[in-house]
């Protein structure tokens, strides 16, 4: 989706501000939030619930809110929205910190989907040195093709092998188990940024095969 998380090439954010001797977590709650979401501790609760993709939940935060929030506060918003959507918690429970005694304890569900035959490994459509163009795609769901690369010409550097597509539909559901080749593509700086870039410089990124076409 075309929203604020896709920041490459934007102006106006000011200087980068490194912090000396930065701790891993600035506050206790940041560590708890990290562990809740990234630590896999909720893994069994995802089963059978078609949890939307984590990155999709982050990207659906309204742009004004996204910029106002700290990094781990976005994670809080994304996780609580996911749990609420799956019916695993209620607003009131999040407000009080206690389970509603009237509601039954949630139960783990059997896994759904993912069955069926594994598709055969696709042959690569491109090889190192091929000239390609990133397609001019503007999907409403999650995608890994940044806006700044769309419709730009590049050169295949490497084939990184076969990976599952991470894109989702506009409701955050994974589009399917589409394994395809992921290529590192080199875009010359001036192709992306005109004469603001040095003619020597380049940006390389990793693109699923369906994002690119022969140039």
């Amino acid at each position, binding site marked *: 989706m075309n929203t604020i998380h896709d920041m490459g*090439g934007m*102006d106006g954010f000011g200087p980068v501000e490194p912090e000396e001797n930065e701790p891993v977590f600035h506050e206790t709650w940041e560590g708890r939030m990290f562990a809740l979401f990234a630590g896999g501790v909720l893994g069994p609760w995802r089963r059978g619930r078609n949890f939307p993709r984590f990155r999709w939940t982050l990207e659906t935060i309204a742009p004004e809110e996204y910029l106002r929030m*700290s990094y781990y506060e976005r994670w*809080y918003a994304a996780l609580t929205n996911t749990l609420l959507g799956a019916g695993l918690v209620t607003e009131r429970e999040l407000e009080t*910190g206690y*389970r509603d005694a009237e509601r039954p304890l949630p139960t783990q569900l059997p896994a759904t989907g993912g069955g069926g035959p594994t598709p055969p490994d696709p042959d690569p459509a491109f090889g190192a040195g091929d000239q390609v163009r990133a397609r001019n795609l503007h999907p409403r769901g999650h995608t890994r093709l940044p806006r700044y690369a769309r419709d730009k010409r590049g050169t295949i550097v490497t084939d990184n092998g076969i*990976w599952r597509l991470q894109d989702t539909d506009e409701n955050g559901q994974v589009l399917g188990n589409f394994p395809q080749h992921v290529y590192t593509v080199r875009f010359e700086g001036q192709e992306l*940024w005109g004469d603001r870039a040095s003619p020597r410089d380049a940006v*390389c990124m990793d*693109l699923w095969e369906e994002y690119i076409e022969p140039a």
Partner: protein
Amino acid sequence: MADAKKDKIGRREFLKDATLGAAAVAGGARAAGAEEIAHSHAQEQDHDHQVVPDDIALRVRALESVLVDKRMIDPADLDAVIDAYENRIGPRNGAQVVARAWVDPEYKARLLEDGTAAIAELSFSDGQGAYMVVKENTPDVHNLVVCTLCSCYPWATLGLPPVWYKSSPYRARAGIEPRSVLAEFGTELDDDVEVRVWDSTAEVRYLILPERPPGTENMTEEELAQIVTRDSMVGVTKIAAP
């Protein structure tokens, strides 16, 4: 733990209750009292990078508490994850990879050919199964890593990313004006040096192999690992001669 009386407790009351009730359990070994929360708030107000609503610490505590109450999580599992990233998984791991590559040309060749396998040789296995690619900085080519879409970063070798790496300015500017960003880190490059920016848009995670500084010829591998910095392995700085 959840009875009718506690169900009436609101957010502010939860703060007072936290030292005694469910949150103390939820916090496990790291359970904190009201004093710690108050302290957190004071720090957040001083934090000029980000605006954090002053009750986020409380909201996260309530979230953890209710998930414990529903028997969905064990706080000890959270403690273990936090302990790993605070104490074991961090840029010291990447520094050992770099130092090995500096002293062992065959290891360096393997590292640049197949980063995942060469890093696994040093037992920095990544629970996420990250596919690692290592890019070498040289006098002619300077590489740096960004994730313009979010915060992808090689956790197993560098730990969790610093705030600046996840910040809007870095994500927005690293691609379009890498030389200006590098200059802010004190890294000035000649015009004839090529700058290559690696935007981590897929599942590949990038580690930069920085240049070995002059004057380190007699240092041991262990001593070399001590001078390798996190920022040099993201590619925003060079390593100064000792």
